[in-house]
């Protein structure tokens, strides 16, 4: 290392990036896979914290809006990605039919959940105060429930839809329930990465939705050997 030149250092750095950027394909994958990243196109918008004036002993004095969370590399969190037209023959890994969404320190946690059509969500309240679940979906029935601490409210969703859930008592609270039509739904992690598995090779159209940026579409061709890497750029608006 005594004679490590800048050129060698650069070469080593490039190799490292190449290794990280092309993860090995999972062995034994029967069908094609899409490994993708959703990134923000354009400057990351400045985060404006919301001042909290009520129930500060639980909610704190300010809240992060979290309606658009972007990683330092530009990856968008909690963007939902699904196939516009799922393959008729293939059935992907089934989504869990029951999932839960908590309310903690006056925020929905997680902010976004995905359930299959006909699935249920257990809404929880960990805060020692009243919350009030309120949603007015179009395909599913609306609900408006007051919830004390420790009480679980379970709600079933029959029709595919993206539903916004709010709290009447805490105006900044936003939660999203995505009722999936088919198994090929995914949502991005903190780095903006997602993965759709069990796809037969072919040409597909991806739909990408984010609560603030709206919905865009993206065509993608999936092979049956290597995972298909895709980077989706969502323009800021």
């Amino acid at each position, binding site marked *: 290392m005594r004679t490590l030149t800048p050129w060698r250092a650069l070469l080593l750095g490039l190799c490292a990036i190449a290794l990280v950027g092309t993860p090995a394909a999972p062995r034994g994958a029967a069908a094609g896979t899409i490994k993708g990243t959703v990134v923000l196109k354009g400057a990351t918008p400045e985060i404006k914290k919301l001042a909290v004036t009520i129930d*500060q*002993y639980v909610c704190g004095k300010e809240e992060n809006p979290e309606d658009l969370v972007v990683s330092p590399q530009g990856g968008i969190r909690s963007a939902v990605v699904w196939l516009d037209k799922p393959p008729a023959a293939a059935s992907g890994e089934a989504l869990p039919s029951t999932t839960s969404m908590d309310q903690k320190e006056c925020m929905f946690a997680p902010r976004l959940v995905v359930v299959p059509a006909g699935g249920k969500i257990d809404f929880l309240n960990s805060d*020692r*105060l009243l919350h*009030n679940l309120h949603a007015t979906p179009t395909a599913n029935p609306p609900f*408006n429930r*007051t919830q*004390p*601490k420790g009480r679980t409210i379970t709600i079933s969703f029959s029709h595919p839809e993206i539903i916004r859930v709010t709290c*009447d008592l805490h105006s900044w609270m936003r939660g999203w329930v995505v009722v999936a039509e088919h198994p090929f739904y995914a949502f991005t992690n903190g780095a903006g990465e997602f993965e759709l598995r069990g796809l037969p090779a072919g040409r597909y159209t991806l739909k990408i939705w984010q609560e603030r940026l709206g919905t865009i579409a993206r065509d993608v061709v999936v092979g049956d050997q290597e995972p298909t890497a895709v980077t989706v750029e969502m323009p800021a608006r």
Partner: protein
Amino acid sequence: MMALLASPLGAPVRAVARIRASVHVKLLAGFLLITLLFIAITAVSLRTVTETARQTNLLDQAHVRVGWSRLIEHALAMQMHFTSMALLAQSEDSVSLILRENNRFNDTLARLETTAPPEERALIQAIRGAQDDAMATVADIANALRDRRTADAMTALRTRQEPIYQKIESLVGSLVAAEEKRMASLRASIEAAQGRSLSQMAGFAVAVVAVALIAGFVISWSFILPVRGFHGFLSQVAEGRFGGSIAVPNRDEFGELAERMNWMSGELRRLDDEQRVAAATLRGLNDRLELASRAKSEFLANMSHELRTPLNAILGFTEIMLDELYGEVPPNLREPLVDIQTNGRHLLRLINDVLDLSKIEAGRLELGVEEYSVQEIVDVVHTSLKSLAIEKGLAFNASAAPDIPPARGDGRRIMQCLMNLAGNALKFTHHGRVEIDVRLDGGWLTYRVSDTGIGIPKEEVENIFAEFRQVDTTITREYGGTGLGLSITKRLVELHGGRIGVESEIGKGSRFFFTVPLHADGGHA
């Protein structure tokens, strides 16, 4: 002041005096003591202020908590009110008002919980437990209202919410009572602390003043006492009472001073004693000397008188012989006869001088005071000595101011004085002139004899009026004279209450003068 020292304060004054420390240290210690008391006052009052501030702060907090408790009670009442409203109106808005009030209750309770003193925690936990039930009930009522289950909502209100709220109300009531009790005790404590602080301050102020007064009195008197002692002691010394001693209790600079004074006093006593012995010895000696001197003078006076009688006979017969009353004097005898006469006269003059001097010294010379004319005296002297001046070829003038009135004094003696001075002047002047003049100046007559003679050396001027003194022995041989003239002149002038003086420059001449009062009283002044 002595009464003060006799009082109980005298003991500390002496005790402070006895402390083996310098004045500087004692004063510093006094000031330091007072300063320390002031620091103590400051510390105590600071502590009181801090304690009062802490209690006031606690009082404020309790006050705020009472306010919150009132808010809780208000929130309860409002919940009941809004619940009734919601039951009547069956609207979403009124439901959310209930919920809002319930959360406000929670918030206020949480604030109360964080600041409450430990003894109120249990009460607050009880309220909290009841509130958890109230929350569930409120949620049930709200949901029942939304589901249009009015009867269920009414039941929940009556059977659950109302008892819970009554429970909470009574708990909050106890909390308020506890807080108010606490506030009352805090107020009492603050008042007590203020009263205590006031009396402490007053006590300290009195103590400081007392300490300052006592320390000031004791320290200053421990200095004043020895100073007074010194004063008295020094007055004794000034009055000539030596050998006393002074005792002060001080072991400081004043003590050292007292020791030095005692030593000085002893020394003065010793010197005084010695001096007294010496003085007594001297007085004895002096008496004896005076006796001897008087005996000598008397002897001389007697002797002179005895000597004059045979000498007068010699001079008389010599004169008769020279006047050839005994027949013609052979030419070869005339010269020896004249020699006899000249020497005889000289001897007579000598004897007269000695007689005068011894009379003066024996105190037996008395002035014959009468009126005399200054002009006459001047004329006689001039006439008597004119021939001598002519013989030596000297100019000789005598004058007296014309405005001099008749004077009083011993004219014969004044003439003798003037004669002496003029005779001396003629004797010691070889060429030039001799002048006599007299003037009157404010009741004093000044006789002056000026010459252009040999002059007198400066170092001899002082001695020139002493007995048997001429400037040197060669002068006696060259000029003759008894050496008593100036001395007698001086004594005579002084008998008149006057004085005599001389101004002289060697080789240029001399100016002798004497001053006598115009009207001498002739006493033995």
